[in-house]
């Protein structure tokens, strides 16, 4: 599994994943020039928010595209034959690929965060709410971790890039609307419908709860318990999605 993870990581970087980082650099530079002019006294807040969103979205796009194409490309090109005809279980193979891809994404995150921090410090940030900043990065990565496991499941289940990407982004959007769904449950009268919407509500990922920056203002004294709960949730949900992916993958023939 470690060999698979290591070579997955190597392949992604040779595949020029770092171009994403260059894109990030340009976004930051352009934003800092523009926001300085437009936002008056809220420049730092905007730079922080824009930077965090850019890091999250670029990480999301990178990770989801890599994850969706990961196995589908291998299956289409038949490079998977030479792996599965070795003493490697399908579980080890899948986990190795999954972790290798996430590791590449994580390294990109570290590089982007470093660049962002340099810009913020140059603009006079003195690490006010520094803990919030790093928690935001951590929880954004948790969101990407979770959605990547779903992307893996959809790609194996559907065997089509377009379908897998569509479902993955649909779940990303749905995950940010979980609370609106909860509001809907309360307003529905029909008990039968209420029950089903409730089940659906609990099964979709709750990304709003993995949004440290939004939650911080209200719950800054409970950040540790929230982080632990959020992490447990992310790990369980990802394990479930991965388990489903493995269940389908074990039955696949090549």
């Amino acid at each position, binding site marked *: 599994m470690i060999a698979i993870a290591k*070579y997955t990581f190597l392949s992604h970087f*040779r595949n020029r994943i770092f171009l994403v980082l260059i894109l990030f650099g340009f976004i930051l530079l352009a934003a800092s020039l523009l926001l300085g002019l437009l936002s008056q006294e809220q420049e730092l807040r905007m730079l922080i928010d824009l930077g965090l969103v850019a890091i999250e979205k670029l990480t999301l796009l990178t990770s989801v595209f890599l994850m969706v194409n990961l196995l589908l490309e291998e299956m289409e090109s*038949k*490079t998977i*034959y*030479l792996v*599965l005809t*070795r*003493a490697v279980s399908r579980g080890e193979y899948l986990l190795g690929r999954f972790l290798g891809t996430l590791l590449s994404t994580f390294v990109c995150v570290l590089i982007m965060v470093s660049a962002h921090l340099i810009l913020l410090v140059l603009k006079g940030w003195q690490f006010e709410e520094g803990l919030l900043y790093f928690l935001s990065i951590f929880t954004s990565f948790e969101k990407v971790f979770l959605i990547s496991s779903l992307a893996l499941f959809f790609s194996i289940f559907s065997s089509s890039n377009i379908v897998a990407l569509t479902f993955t982004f649909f779940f990303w959007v749905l995950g940010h609307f979980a609370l609106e769904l909860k509001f809907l449950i309360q307003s529905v009268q029909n008990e039968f419908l209420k029950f089903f919407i409730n089940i659906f509500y609990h099964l979709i990922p709750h990304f709003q709860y993995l949004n440290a920056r939004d939650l911080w203002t209200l719950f800054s004294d409970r950040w540790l318990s929230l982080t632990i709960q959020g992490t447990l949730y992310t790990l369980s949900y990802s394990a479930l999605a991965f388990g489903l992916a493995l269940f389908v993958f074990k039955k696949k023939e090549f």
Partner: protein
Amino acid sequence: MKDPIIQTFELSKVYKKSHLWKSKTTVGLSQVNLTIGKQEIFGLLGQNGAGKTTALKLILGLLFPTQGSIHLFDRKMPDRASIQKTGFVPEVPYFPKYLTVKEVLYFYGALSGVSNSDLKSRSSEILQLMKMEEHQNKRVRECSKGMLQRLSLAQSLIHNPSLLVLDEPITGLDPLGLNEMRDLIARLNAQGKTILFSSHILAEVERIAHRVGILVDGKLVKVLEAKDWSSKSGALEEIYIDTVRQYGVTDSL
């Protein structure tokens, strides 16, 4: 047979394709009983679609049998220890584009359980055997077709397997390539390896195989020993054509 390496018992594979409310079944393999002994060179022959690749994939675990069972090294498949002693050369070699030749060997060696300390020496040995030392730092996407075929063989040998499964190893080779492949197979067999391969090129098969099996429409209709064709050159081809005409419909032309 003493020390069977591969045994199949009533091995069958039916492919099912569903589209809306209709489904179509195709018989890939039907009740194949095959035994391949230690240090044998066994050739699997058949027309296109006869089930050769299906049989190989079933043995290697890429496909799952609809019925019957497979035993490798006297252990029922799937079995990790048996697979660890097997090397596979696919018909068309595909490798991760972004790795170098050396990294490919290291990667597959690691997957096959070769320890880090042995990987270096083992891959040097194999690169020497395949005459690829000067290309070891080339990326896979920069390699020619011939180099990829040699790399394909190299990766199958990195962990010194006892059984080699080769899918159409001599297709597309030039006369020099054919000669080198023949020598290599003979050398590996002399080292104690059992070799199972599929092929269309009967002239070469009759020169290297100890036994052959003829598949027609998924059924193993005939198993021959070398003595059955060694009396005259081209005898295997005659037997093959007669068998195929007797048991099945040909769609070659």
